[in-house]
């Protein structure tokens, strides 16, 4: 997750504008690969081994996936977030504006990856959950659709979201100077979807045997889903900063880069 830092401070030479899309594309490909593999796995193992949680094969084909997720994901979280914190820029006050622009654009391009992973949790696997639970008799909290929706998709976007947050406060002066509340919401709102799973499972255990999707029990997910509206607020903040501060400092009236 590093930006090509060929724009050396004090150099008279001005690097032409170039944005590095490679990390974004790699991120998108990685998410695509993870999500499609999971989808393929469901198609392959759900009907044969996923209908009955008391079946020993359920343990083999499903619970193992679940335990693997539970081990791998926290590790990845601390690796990503820890790396970003430990390798933080300790002289952010000296960051050149041009480099800040490069980093800002890189960071926004990584928001694409975050939004893409959120798509799988909020749309693709979420609605698929309805198709599965209205088709079968639910007999465990860890069903073939939950194992991927709650314990893969959600942690994945949480890891990406927190990584982006830490990138922002350690490398981008605008976000390090003061914490942006919309950014907090964009990261923490979706994060709260995971704790909401607790309420969901509690309700399904004690109240609700039947499956329809619009039950009040599920509205916690809706509430925290709304926090993504704060993306609009984040956009407004970034636009304000870029147009009044960052861009005027690196561009002249002819539209040329000045540093």
């Amino acid at each position: 997750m590093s930006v090509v830092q060929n724009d050396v401070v004090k150099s008279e030479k001005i690097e032409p504008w170039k944005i590095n899309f490679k990390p974004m594309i790699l991120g998108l490909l990685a998410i695509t690969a993870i999500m499609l593999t999971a989808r393929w796995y469901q198609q392959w193992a759900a009907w044969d081994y996923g209908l009955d949680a008391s079946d020993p094969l359920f343990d083999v084909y499903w619970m193992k996936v679940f335990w693997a997720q539970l081990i791998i994901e926290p590790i990845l979280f601390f690796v990503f977030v820890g790396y970003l914190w430990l390798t933080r820029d300790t002289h952010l006050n000296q960051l050149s504006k041009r480099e800040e622009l490069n980093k800002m654009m890189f960071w926004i391009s990584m928001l694409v990856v975050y939004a893409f992973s959120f798509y799988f949790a909020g749309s693709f696997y979420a609605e698929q959950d309805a198709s599965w639970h209205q088709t079968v008799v639910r007999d465990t909290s860890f069903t073939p659709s939950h194992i991927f929706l709650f314990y893969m998709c959600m942690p994945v976007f949480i890891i990406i979201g927190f990584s982006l947050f830490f990138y922002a406060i350690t490398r981008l002066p605008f976000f390090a100077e003061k914490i942006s509340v919309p950014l907090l919401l964009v990261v923490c709102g979706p994060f709260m979807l995971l704790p909401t799973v607790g309420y969901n499972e509690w309700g399904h255990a004690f109240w609700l045997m039947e499956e329809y999707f619009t039950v009040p029990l599920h509205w916690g997910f809706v509430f925290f889903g709304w926090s993504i509206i704060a993306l609009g607020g984040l956009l407004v903040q970034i636009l304000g900063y870029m147009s009044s501060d960052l861009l005027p400092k690196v561009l002249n009236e002819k539209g040329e880069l000045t540093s």
Partner: protein
Amino acid sequence: MTRLYIKVVMMLVLFSVAGLALAHGERNQEPFLRMKTLHWYDIKWSIENDSTVQVNEEVTMSGKVHFFSRWPEQINMPDTVFLANATPGPVFVRVGTWLNDVPMIQSTGVEVGRVYDFKVVLKARIPGRHHVHPMFNVESAGGLVGPGIWMNIAGDANDFLYGVETRTGIVIEDLETYGVENVVKWHAFWAILAVLWLAWWVRRPLLINRFLWVKDNNWSALITRTDMMVGGILLVFIITVLIVANQITEKTYPRTVPLQGGKVEVQYVPNPEEGLVEVKNHTSEYYLPGRTITIDATITNNTGKVIQIGEFMSSNLRFVNKKLPIAMAGVDEGYPAELVPNKGLILSDDSPIQPGESRRLRMEATDVAWETERLSSLLNDPDSSYGALIFFFDEEGNRYTSEIYGQILPTFFDK
């Protein structure tokens, strides 16, 4: 040597359990939901267990279902129930369902303590090996599943065809695709319109320019006269399309009816034999190491005939008294073996019960199924009690059913 022996036994148990991967998730339902709600019996399938049907072929499940009198308090009374089939999704199409010969497209209500005849006709759709059960959805309790058998569907899913003829004379050849082309066409039409509208804006510098213009209050640059004109035309166009499309639709489909949401009434058929034999539970124990339920009960014969105990049935498990041929005759060949425990029902006193006699005896139902079906988890229920049906037979072969229910006491180890 002993360790080897234990290992072999463990392996055998594991294999027997692994071979029983039949359920639809009902095994993890709380035992009270399975023991004190519905009791299914006399179940017949039109095909044999594990036989094969072709795509488009029909199969029938029928039998009796008894709604337990001591209905669990945790769930609603069965005032709203729906007769269904537990299959892995729509691998079979539900052609028809009947309860006491009343068609069951809609939901209905039933009375507890009564027996109903059901019939479910299915049509094979998706090839594969599927486990198929009759099922009742009971409001607040969810799906309560009856005994099931394996059915194999052979052929090609693409050959599946299921049609109906409407009351207005339209012949629908295939319900799976009916109207879909029209749906896709309309979705595409609106999506293209939306994309064009978005492209209209995205083609121009989008964010920073416009942000500055807004700050500058330069709305004539933000939304030009052309934008207003195009927007106005689009607005009129959308409204016109809606009006015209609806007029055409009204002409094409002049006769429609709303979704039908009424409830159907089903009369129960009186069963004079039921309850003629009184069964009173004294103590019931679940002996964990031996997987045995022992029931100490008093049976009072009010039938006027000499009777014998034929079967103890709960949660689809049939403990049959093997010493009674007429009871054994009730187990059809090919009936799912895992639901008819080998040892059957052992009685402390096998002699016939005379008319008017009241006899206290012990019934023993032993099988690994208590574990594999997870019924032993009733010891984890906040209300550790059981419910079951007992079948009695007189010498002429008449059958009498009685309910039994009571507390269940655990024995965790040998004393």
